[in-house]
């Protein structure tokens, strides 16, 4: 119990530190929010231009919820790169904490940050498109898929966090490659059915595919979570498989970095 309490305290340290960083970089946070809102609006306006409320909502959901998943993914993936940039990585690695508590803290903060960020974008878009009728939407389904999506994205984020550990100079940038591949195959702005068959196979391996399908069904048709079980179980399985795998892979990468001296260098 004491060990768990100690580890949870350590997790809280990362939540608090990330909050402090967000607070200090408030100017950048506003700029990022403006960027995200402008991006979501630009994409949604394609639907408005076509005069199709369904297309508008489809694109809007894609833009908003891809933003959420990207934010969660980025915070987790940057767990290492931020510390490498600041030069604090060795101190954090020396601390008597388990790696899961570090990643748990990063994940929890990422989810809260992502929810706040996404809510602001959602409100702006609803105000911008007053013609949208969301009366039949099922908010429980939307929230459930956001949380399930975060859960399944954690493992992928952990795997992405390995890259800055192994590749000192360009590791952080390499996480963008992974992110863009997920964007390509997950049906964010189009149906996965239009993808070539081999890409459709990959789309089944991306949690974003199921999250977006679930959110769209909940928002456009008011479908309940129970009726979307076909999208729920893959997300649960991915979380259960990817998180332990991510932790295992991170541990292996950390040992490799300690053997080769890669913790020392500042990128």
């Amino acid at each position, binding site marked *: 119990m004491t060990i768990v309490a100690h580890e949870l305290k*350590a997790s809280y340290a990362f939540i608090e530190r990330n909050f402090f960083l967000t607070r200090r970089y408030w100017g950048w946070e506003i700029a990022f929010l403006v960027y995200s809102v402008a991006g979501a609006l630009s994409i949604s306006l394609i639907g408005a231009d076509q005069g199709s409320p369904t297309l508008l909502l489809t694109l809007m959901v894609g833009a908003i919820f891809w933003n959420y998943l990207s934010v969660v993914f980025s915070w987790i993936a940057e767990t290492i790169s931020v510390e490498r940039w600041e030069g*604090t990585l060795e101190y954090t690695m020396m601390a008597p904490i388990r790696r899961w508590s570090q990643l748990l803290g990063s994940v929890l903060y990422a989810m809260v940050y992502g929810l706040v960020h996404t809510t602001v974008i959602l409100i702006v878009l609803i105000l911008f498109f007053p013609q949208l009728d969301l009366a039949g939407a099922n908010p429980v389904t939307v929230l459930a898929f956001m949380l399930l999506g975060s859960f399944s994205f954690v493992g992928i984020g952990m795997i992405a966090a390995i890259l800055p550990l192994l590749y000192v100079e360009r590791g952080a940038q390499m996480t963008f490659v992974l992110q863009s591949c997920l964007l390509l195959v997950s049906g964010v702005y189009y149906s996965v059915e239009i993808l070539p068959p081999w890409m459709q196979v990959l789309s089944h391996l991306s949690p974003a595919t199921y999250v977006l399908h679930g959110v769209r069904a909940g928002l456009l048709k008011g479908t309940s979570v129970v009726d979307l079980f076909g999208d729920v179980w893959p997300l649960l399985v991915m979380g259960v498989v990817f998180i332990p795998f991510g932790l295992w892979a991170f541990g292996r990468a950390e040992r490799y970095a300690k053997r080769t001296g890669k913790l020392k260098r500042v990128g």
Partner: protein
Amino acid sequence: MTAIVLPELKNGSGGLPSQPTQPVASHRRDIAVPALLIEDASKRFIVGRKRKPVVAISHVSMRLERGDIHGILGANGSGKSTLIRLISGLLTLDEGRVEVFGHDIVRDEMAVKRLINRVSVDAAFFKKLSPMENLLFAARLYGMDGTRAKREALQILARLGIGANRTTRPIEQMSRGMQQKVAIARALLTSPTLLLLDEPTTGLDPRSKLDVQTFIEELRETHDATIVLTTHDLAEAERLCGRITILNDGRVVAEDTPDGLIALVASRLGRPATLEDVFMTFTGRSLDDDVEEDESESDD
């Protein structure tokens, strides 16, 4: 200049303390557990496209008793920082073993991490965060609650000459010397029983250097801390360290008290000697060589 290696110095009055030939665990009932025990530690790195192995630490053995301040001297690239990183668990050993208060750094990793902390030459922080925010983060990682951490952080910072009014602004607005003091406060906040100071005063102005040195002396008097200090400042080593190990090309070439080393070299040179003579005798280079190397590295 070729290094003058004197293997005979490893025995006798100027040599290494005798190492136990059996595992330490079997001795624990009979002798005091050393604060730090390094036995036959070696570390190589593979570098370059030809994957050439470079020996950073070669068969190093050391033993520190509780409360010691033990200096490690050596030229740039002699393996001082690598040795500190090995003790810190930031690098894995290729051979040998390291124990901290009887805990093996590999088998009892968490126990060792709770006992040690480190201050390196570069005061690494989240630069946009304040000293207090940085210290709070570090303290929580070591299991301290926020209220206690803030109270003790203020006390330590005050002792180091940093008032409460300076603890809330971004650390990037502080001078290099002030940042280094905060780095020392960060290490002390977690009450380490083994403190690893890797060139903590390098680059500091004379006043800041004196502050830090005085503080280290106070630590010896008031805290139950054992300190490993690497430094290029020989006066600092002479002032603070009870024993000194000299590393050259990753190997221990001498270990004794400062007076013991000076006496040994004086007898060899046939004239009164200083710690600089000791350094030159065992590393084959003067401090000026090191300074020039430092400057050319910064130019690069």
